[in-house]
Protein backbone atom coordinates (compact mmCIF):
# COMPACT_ATOMS: atom_id res chain seq x y z
CA UNK A 1 0.00 0.00 0.00
CA UNK A 2 2.93 2.30 0.79
CA UNK A 3 4.23 1.82 -2.75
CA UNK A 4 0.87 2.89 -4.15
CA UNK A 5 0.87 5.98 -1.96
CA UNK A 6 4.42 6.75 -3.10
CA UNK A 7 3.35 6.43 -6.73
CA UNK A 8 0.43 8.86 -6.39
CA UNK A 9 2.33 11.42 -4.35
CA UNK A 10 5.27 11.16 -6.79
CA UNK A 11 2.98 12.18 -9.67
CA UNK A 12 1.22 14.81 -7.54
CA UNK A 13 4.59 16.42 -6.77
CA UNK A 14 5.44 16.28 -10.47
CA UNK A 15 2.24 18.14 -11.38
CA UNK A 16 2.94 20.77 -8.73
CA UNK A 17 6.47 21.19 -10.10
CA UNK A 18 5.18 21.65 -13.68
CA UNK A 19 2.73 24.31 -12.49
CA UNK A 20 5.33 26.13 -10.39
CA UNK A 21 7.81 26.11 -13.29
CA UNK A 22 5.21 27.74 -15.54
CA UNK A 23 4.24 30.27 -12.85
CA UNK A 24 7.86 31.31 -12.40
CA UNK A 25 8.86 31.51 -16.08
CA UNK A 26 5.90 32.34 -18.33
CA UNK A 27 4.54 35.79 -19.14
CA UNK A 28 1.07 35.16 -20.56
CA UNK A 29 -1.60 35.76 -17.90
CA UNK A 30 -3.86 32.94 -19.17
CA UNK A 31 -0.89 30.54 -19.12
CA UNK A 32 -0.27 31.52 -15.50
CA UNK A 33 -3.81 30.56 -14.55
CA UNK A 34 -3.51 27.31 -16.49
CA UNK A 35 -0.45 26.71 -14.28
CA UNK A 36 -2.54 27.39 -11.16
CA UNK A 37 -5.02 24.78 -12.46
CA UNK A 38 -2.22 22.24 -12.96
CA UNK A 39 -1.02 22.83 -9.38
CA UNK A 40 -4.56 22.38 -8.08
CA UNK A 41 -4.80 19.06 -9.96
CA UNK A 42 -1.70 17.88 -8.16
CA UNK A 43 -3.12 18.91 -4.80
CA UNK A 44 -6.49 17.22 -5.36
CA UNK A 45 -4.71 14.05 -6.56
CA UNK A 46 -2.66 14.05 -3.33
CA UNK A 47 -5.79 14.54 -1.16
CA UNK A 48 -7.85 11.77 -2.80
CA UNK A 49 -4.93 9.32 -3.09
CA UNK A 50 -3.99 9.78 0.57
CA UNK A 51 -7.62 9.24 1.56
CA UNK A 52 -7.84 6.09 -0.56
CA UNK A 53 -4.61 4.61 0.80
CA UNK A 54 -5.43 5.46 4.43
CA UNK A 55 -9.03 4.13 4.20
CA UNK A 56 -10.46 7.64 4.66
CA UNK A 57 -11.87 8.04 1.17
CA UNK A 58 -15.20 9.61 2.27
CA UNK A 59 -13.49 12.42 4.15
CA UNK A 60 -10.97 12.88 1.33
CA UNK A 61 -13.79 13.12 -1.21
CA UNK A 62 -15.59 15.81 0.78
CA UNK A 63 -12.33 17.77 1.07
CA UNK A 64 -11.68 17.36 -2.66
CA UNK A 65 -15.17 18.64 -3.50
CA UNK A 66 -14.66 21.67 -1.23
CA UNK A 67 -11.34 22.27 -2.95
CA UNK A 68 -12.91 22.08 -6.42
CA UNK A 69 -15.60 24.63 -5.45
CA UNK A 70 -12.94 27.04 -4.15
CA UNK A 71 -10.96 26.48 -7.37
CA UNK A 72 -13.94 27.37 -9.57
CA UNK A 73 -14.60 30.58 -7.62
CA UNK A 74 -10.92 31.48 -7.92
CA UNK A 75 -10.78 30.83 -11.67
CA UNK A 76 -14.01 32.74 -12.38
CA UNK A 77 -12.75 35.80 -10.50
CA UNK A 78 -9.26 35.56 -11.97
CA UNK A 79 -10.52 35.28 -15.55
CA UNK A 80 -12.82 38.28 -15.05
CA UNK A 81 -9.79 40.17 -13.78
CA UNK A 82 -7.76 39.05 -16.84
CA UNK A 83 -10.46 40.33 -19.22
CA UNK A 84 -10.41 43.70 -17.44
CA UNK A 85 -6.61 43.85 -17.58
CA UNK A 86 -6.74 43.01 -21.31
CA UNK A 87 -9.29 45.77 -21.98
CA UNK A 88 -7.05 48.25 -20.19
CA UNK A 89 -3.62 47.19 -21.52
CA UNK A 90 -4.59 45.48 -24.84
CA UNK A 91 -2.13 42.74 -23.92
CA UNK A 92 -1.88 39.71 -21.67
CA UNK A 93 1.79 40.26 -20.91
CA UNK A 94 2.30 40.07 -17.17
CA UNK A 95 5.28 42.46 -17.37
CA UNK A 96 2.97 45.30 -18.39
CA UNK A 97 1.33 45.08 -14.98
CA UNK A 98 4.36 46.80 -13.52
CA UNK A 99 2.90 49.98 -15.04
CA UNK A 100 0.31 49.81 -12.28
CA UNK A 101 2.98 50.98 -9.84
CA UNK A 102 2.05 54.41 -8.52
Amino acid at each position, binding site marked *: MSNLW*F*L*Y*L*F*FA*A*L*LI*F*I*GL*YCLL*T*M*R*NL*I*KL*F*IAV*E*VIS*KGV*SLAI*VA*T*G*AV*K*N*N*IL*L*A*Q*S*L*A*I*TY*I*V*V*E*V*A*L*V*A*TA*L*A*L*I*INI*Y*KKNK*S*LDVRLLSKLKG
Partner: protein
Amino acid sequence: MAIQIILLCGLVIFSALAILLKDLIKAALSLAVASLLLGIIFFRLAAPYAAVFEISVVAGLITVLFILTIALTKKGDEVTEARLVKLAFPVFLILFLVIDGLVMKSLLQKIPALPSGPEAGTFGEVLWKQRTFDLVAQVGVILAGVLAVLALFRKKEEDKDE
Protein backbone atom coordinates in the same frame (compact mmCIF):
# COMPACT_ATOMS: atom_id res chain seq x y z
CA MET B 1 -1.56 -0.93 -11.28
CA ALA B 2 -0.35 -0.70 -14.91
CA ILE B 3 -3.53 1.13 -15.93
CA GLN B 4 -3.09 3.57 -13.05
CA ILE B 5 0.48 4.30 -14.13
CA ILE B 6 -0.64 4.88 -17.73
CA LEU B 7 -3.39 7.23 -16.53
CA LEU B 8 -0.97 9.13 -14.27
CA CYS B 9 1.59 9.44 -17.09
CA GLY B 10 -1.17 10.72 -19.39
CA LEU B 11 -2.18 13.25 -16.72
CA VAL B 12 1.39 14.58 -16.47
CA ILE B 13 1.89 14.64 -20.27
CA PHE B 14 -1.33 16.57 -20.94
CA SER B 15 -0.59 18.96 -18.05
CA ALA B 16 2.87 19.61 -19.50
CA LEU B 17 1.30 20.14 -22.94
CA ALA B 18 -1.15 22.63 -21.41
CA ILE B 19 1.70 24.87 -20.34
CA LEU B 20 4.03 24.26 -23.29
CA LEU B 21 1.63 24.64 -26.26
CA LYS B 22 1.70 28.11 -27.75
CA ASP B 23 -1.91 28.02 -28.99
CA LEU B 24 -4.03 28.88 -25.95
CA ILE B 25 -7.12 27.02 -27.19
CA LYS B 26 -5.07 23.82 -27.55
CA ALA B 27 -3.57 24.45 -24.11
CA ALA B 28 -7.07 24.78 -22.57
CA LEU B 29 -8.21 21.58 -24.31
CA SER B 30 -5.11 19.73 -23.03
CA LEU B 31 -6.03 20.89 -19.55
CA ALA B 32 -9.55 19.52 -20.05
CA VAL B 33 -8.15 16.13 -21.14
CA ALA B 34 -5.88 16.14 -18.06
CA SER B 35 -8.95 16.81 -15.86
CA LEU B 36 -10.78 13.96 -17.56
CA LEU B 37 -7.88 11.59 -16.84
CA LEU B 38 -7.79 12.79 -13.21
CA GLY B 39 -11.53 12.08 -12.98
CA ILE B 40 -10.95 8.51 -14.24
CA ILE B 41 -8.17 8.10 -11.65
CA PHE B 42 -10.60 9.25 -8.94
CA PHE B 43 -13.16 6.70 -10.14
CA ARG B 44 -10.54 3.97 -9.89
CA LEU B 45 -9.65 5.13 -6.37
CA ALA B 46 -13.30 4.52 -5.37
CA ALA B 47 -14.04 8.26 -5.12
CA PRO B 48 -16.99 8.62 -7.54
CA TYR B 49 -18.34 11.91 -6.15
CA ALA B 50 -14.98 13.66 -6.43
CA ALA B 51 -14.65 12.18 -9.95
CA VAL B 52 -18.03 13.52 -11.04
CA PHE B 53 -17.14 16.98 -9.70
CA GLU B 54 -13.74 16.86 -11.38
CA ILE B 55 -15.14 15.88 -14.76
CA SER B 56 -18.25 18.08 -14.78
CA VAL B 57 -16.91 21.19 -13.06
CA VAL B 58 -13.18 21.28 -13.83
CA ALA B 59 -13.14 19.55 -17.24
CA GLY B 60 -16.43 21.17 -18.27
CA LEU B 61 -17.09 24.52 -16.64
CA ILE B 62 -13.52 25.76 -16.17
CA THR B 63 -12.59 24.80 -19.76
CA VAL B 64 -15.58 26.78 -21.04
CA LEU B 65 -14.50 29.76 -18.91
CA PHE B 66 -10.94 29.50 -20.26
CA ILE B 67 -12.07 29.27 -23.89
CA LEU B 68 -14.46 32.20 -23.37
CA THR B 69 -11.62 34.29 -21.95
CA ILE B 70 -9.29 33.30 -24.80
CA ALA B 71 -11.97 34.28 -27.32
CA LEU B 72 -12.45 37.66 -25.61
CA THR B 73 -8.70 38.35 -25.57
CA LYS B 74 -7.83 37.55 -29.18
CA LYS B 75 -4.34 39.04 -29.17
CA GLY B 76 -3.31 36.98 -26.16
CA ASP B 77 -1.27 34.64 -28.35
CA GLU B 78 1.11 37.45 -29.23
CA VAL B 79 2.82 37.49 -25.84
CA THR B 80 6.36 36.32 -26.48
CA GLU B 81 7.78 33.90 -23.97
CA ALA B 82 11.49 33.68 -23.24
CA ARG B 83 13.18 31.13 -25.56
CA LEU B 84 15.01 29.40 -22.74
CA VAL B 85 11.76 28.50 -20.94
CA LYS B 86 10.79 25.63 -23.26
CA LEU B 87 14.39 24.49 -23.79
CA ALA B 88 15.16 24.35 -20.07
CA PHE B 89 11.89 22.62 -19.16
CA PRO B 90 12.99 19.00 -19.93
CA VAL B 91 16.25 19.54 -18.03
CA PHE B 92 14.49 20.81 -14.92
CA LEU B 93 11.82 18.10 -15.25
CA ILE B 94 14.40 15.29 -15.31
CA LEU B 95 16.25 16.92 -12.41
CA PHE B 96 13.03 17.10 -10.41
CA LEU B 97 12.11 13.50 -11.33
CA VAL B 98 15.39 12.28 -9.84
CA ILE B 99 15.01 14.38 -6.67
CA ASP B 100 11.34 13.40 -6.36
CA GLY B 101 12.16 9.70 -6.65
CA LEU B 102 14.96 9.92 -4.11
CA VAL B 103 13.27 12.13 -1.52
CA MET B 104 9.57 11.25 -1.64
CA LYS B 105 9.85 7.75 -0.13
CA SER B 106 11.77 8.90 2.93
CA LEU B 107 9.44 11.90 3.27
CA LEU B 108 6.38 9.65 3.33
CA GLN B 109 7.69 7.80 6.37
CA LYS B 110 8.20 11.06 8.28
CA ILE B 111 5.11 13.11 7.39
CA PRO B 112 2.11 12.30 9.58
CA ALA B 113 -1.01 11.69 7.48
CA LEU B 114 -4.66 10.99 8.24
CA PRO B 115 -5.09 8.24 10.85
CA SER B 116 -5.54 4.88 9.19
CA GLY B 117 -8.75 2.93 9.81
CA PRO B 118 -12.07 2.07 8.19
CA GLU B 119 -14.73 4.81 8.06
CA ALA B 120 -18.30 4.36 9.15
CA GLY B 121 -21.40 5.73 7.40
CA THR B 122 -22.01 6.99 3.90
CA PHE B 123 -20.56 9.85 1.89
CA GLY B 124 -23.67 11.94 2.57
CA GLU B 125 -23.29 11.55 6.33
CA VAL B 126 -19.63 12.57 6.22
CA LEU B 127 -20.31 15.57 3.98
CA TRP B 128 -23.46 16.91 5.66
CA LYS B 129 -22.74 16.02 9.30
CA GLN B 130 -18.97 15.95 9.81
CA ARG B 131 -17.99 18.66 7.33
CA THR B 132 -20.93 21.04 7.81
CA PHE B 133 -18.63 24.01 8.36
CA ASP B 134 -16.94 23.29 5.01
CA LEU B 135 -20.31 23.57 3.29
CA VAL B 136 -20.94 26.97 4.93
CA ALA B 137 -17.50 28.07 3.79
CA GLN B 138 -18.27 26.83 0.26
CA VAL B 139 -21.43 28.95 0.13
CA GLY B 140 -19.36 31.92 1.32
CA VAL B 141 -16.69 31.33 -1.34
CA ILE B 142 -19.26 31.00 -4.14
CA LEU B 143 -20.99 34.22 -3.03
CA ALA B 144 -17.63 36.02 -2.82
CA GLY B 145 -16.76 34.79 -6.34
CA VAL B 146 -20.10 35.91 -7.80
CA LEU B 147 -19.85 39.32 -6.12
CA ALA B 148 -16.25 39.73 -7.31
CA VAL B 149 -17.20 38.96 -10.93
CA LEU B 150 -20.20 41.31 -10.73
CA ALA B 151 -18.06 44.07 -9.23
CA LEU B 152 -15.35 43.66 -11.88
CA PHE B 153 -17.80 43.98 -14.77
CA ARG B 154 -19.97 46.69 -13.16
CA LYS B 155 -17.01 49.02 -13.05
CA LYS B 156 -16.61 48.81 -16.83
CA GLU B 157 -20.27 49.64 -17.41
CA GLU B 158 -19.93 52.78 -15.28
CA ASP B 159 -16.92 53.77 -17.39
CA LYS B 160 -19.01 53.45 -20.55
CA ASP B 161 -21.77 55.66 -19.09
CA GLU B 162 -19.23 58.38 -18.42
